[in-house]
């Protein structure tokens, strides 16, 4: 297994384990996202 293949496999494993989503969420501004969610579609119906 080459290094790149191993990394690819590790990334796939992380995604299967749900770690990919956690890694992606690390870059998300949680405060802003929560505030945006609070003003999401339900509040657009009024």
């Amino acid at each position, binding site marked *: 297994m080459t290094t790149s293949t191993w990394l690819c496999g590790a990334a796939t494993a992380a995604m299967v384990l749900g770690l990919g989503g956690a890694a992606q*969420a690390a*870059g998300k*501004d949680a405060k802003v*996202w929560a*505030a*945006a*969610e609070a*003003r999401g579609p339900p509040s657009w119906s*009024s």
Partner: protein
Amino acid sequence: MKQVVNIDSGTGDVEGGRKVAAVLIPHLKALGMTVESVPAEIDGLPENTVATLTGTGKAKILLIGHIDTVFGPGTVAGWPFSIEGDVGHGPGITDEKGGVVEGVFALKLLNQLGFKNFAKITFLIETSEERGSPGTRKLIDKLVHEHDVELNLEPGDSPDVITVWRKGSSTIDIDVKGRASHAGVAPQDGRNAATELVHQLATVDQFPHSGSGTTVNLTIINAGSRYNIIPEDARAQINVRIRSKADLDAVVAGFEKSAQTTVVPDTKVTVTRENSFPPLPNNPMTDALAARAQAIYAPLGLTLGLGGNGGASESALAYEAGIPALDGLGPVGGGFHSTKEFMDMKSVTPRLYLLTKLVMELGAAPPKPAR
């Protein structure tokens, strides 16, 4: 959202435009913004709204949205705001009332988060974009020169695309003057302007009607006044969309050449052009802003596409002034300018997040203008 979509505000509907502004302005004032209603620059249009918020940072950010739609009075009665599952419907829901509401909500988020790292945020809500902004052109020109960056709230394209280029929009008017006569008693004395116009319109087919380059389409045609009169006057309007200004010259030259040769004797053909918006070409300033937007979006696990379309907007005026501009930041939708217009409600939260974060990042580190 429901409130503003359920008000007819087609371009030129002065009362409708004022009613929509009356819904929005209290929200802006509640955020501590200075709100000014600026009279339109031509008659028959409602006031534009300019809301300004002063911060403690460096960047001057201009948000632009419009509340005029292409739909006439009475449209809402037969097609009111509705949401079915993840899809919203109603006249102007994405073009562009959804974008304007998103702008108001982004300002509310910034207020809620106590974010003040910007010198100034100006929100221009204009009322004549769907006719090329004749009532706002000078105001837009003034504002873009006073800011470091322009963020435009036109809708995003499906599946989730922001706009990095736009075509310019112009109209070519073809006017034919003939001679009126009784269609039954003395048709031989008439010179049929409508017939000549039909011949002139063959030129339209010399150009593409769709595609990513120049498009030329017949959109309005008028001729005749009564069934028994040979028409003295006929007029057609041709909508032209171009990727560069030089492309328009080629189209106008085609119609002017045709006008030199008439099929109906003694008729006179006049060709005039009306420029609405210049094109927003691909450019490094917009590309840099788009890269920032993609970096903001990626941690959401979403892919933000980059694209362009034939719909013109105020961003082209910002580009002409040397100001970095990014467009298509409103909620995603489609079916624009038709009763198929819709909003993808799933895009609302990510797009609101994107706009808010863009303002926060640009407020702290404004892009360098080309001027």
